[in-house]
């Protein structure tokens, strides 16, 4: 598969965006903004309404993702470390998405 100059440019922009992703944790922290609406953990829900809905309690821990919350260590309070984990997550996730899409479209698209 050949990559054109324009496509190469896009890939570089995507890489730069990956390096900028910590903005996505620093900016909310600076403005004292918390979770996205409707994406609270069971723990946070308990603090908000006084109990954990039974369905949430049952489902929320059933699947634990390998890099949950785009980090490898939730306990680490260092902003620099978390920014680093976030960048790594971005590069890894974007690469996985890119490769998965090339494989899927390679299988389904046959014509020039």
């Amino acid at each position, binding site marked *: 598969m050949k*990559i054109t100059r324009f496509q190469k440019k896009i890939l570089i922009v995507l890489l730069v965006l990956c390096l900028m992703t910590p903005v996505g944790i620093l900016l909310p922290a600076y403005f004292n903004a918390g979770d996205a609406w409707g994406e609270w953990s069971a723990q946070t829900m308990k603090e908000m309404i006084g109990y954990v809905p039974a369905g949430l309690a049952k489902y929320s821990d059933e*699947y634990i993702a390998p890099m949950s*919350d785009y980090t490898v260590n939730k306990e680490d309070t260092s902003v620099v470390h978390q920014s680093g984990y976030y960048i790594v997550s971005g590069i890894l996730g974007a690469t996985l998405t890119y490769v998965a899409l*090339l494989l899927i479209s390679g299988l389904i698209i046959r014509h020039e």
Partner: protein
Amino acid sequence: MHIPDGYLSPQTYIPLFGIFVPFAAVAVKKVKEEVSSRDIPYLGMAGAFSFIIMMFNLPVPGGTTGHAVGAAVIAILLGPWAATIAVSVALIIQALVFGDGGITAIGANCFNMAVFMPFTAYYIFKLFSVNPERKTRSYFASFFSGYVSLVLAAILTAVELGIQPLIASTPNGKALYCPYDLSVAVPAMALGHMLIFGFFEGIITAIIISYVLKNEPDLIYALRKEARK
């Protein structure tokens, strides 16, 4: 907008999964017809872009956070069906690897952000009957396409969450899943997206479409003559 596990009842997430699957199947068929093999890298880059842009959490000062999805710009550039595939793959990897969005909610999240949003964005853009010569018009068409489609997708998500107290509660009135009803969920989701996140989606859509219009205008699916409807 990534609904986690435990917020939707099975009566909600199973039908939404059931709606998403046929859309995905048609998307595969359409992409096979519409996308040529030399454009495959664009599909991969589109998915990667969506993945990354969703990591840019923006704050409502003192409140919640939200983000753009990138589905609007992808729908205009590569077509709504290609956007369905690209954004779905990003969402599925976010759920499986990063725990962003639940496993049980994959159908719901894909339907909201990878089907509903790109189609809404695409048809809003088409409403403006953009002519590549008229740069300002295409700039605004792109902005509105991104802004409105993100806000509507957020409201759809809020409706799915907000109907949970009606569907599933314990006999003593405690919620089983999302505890907030429509009167709380819809305004909360709509406001953040109308005031902040929608603008970001609109601006990135407008900037990217303007850039591509200037440099690679033939790439834009929504402006091709053969693009149906």
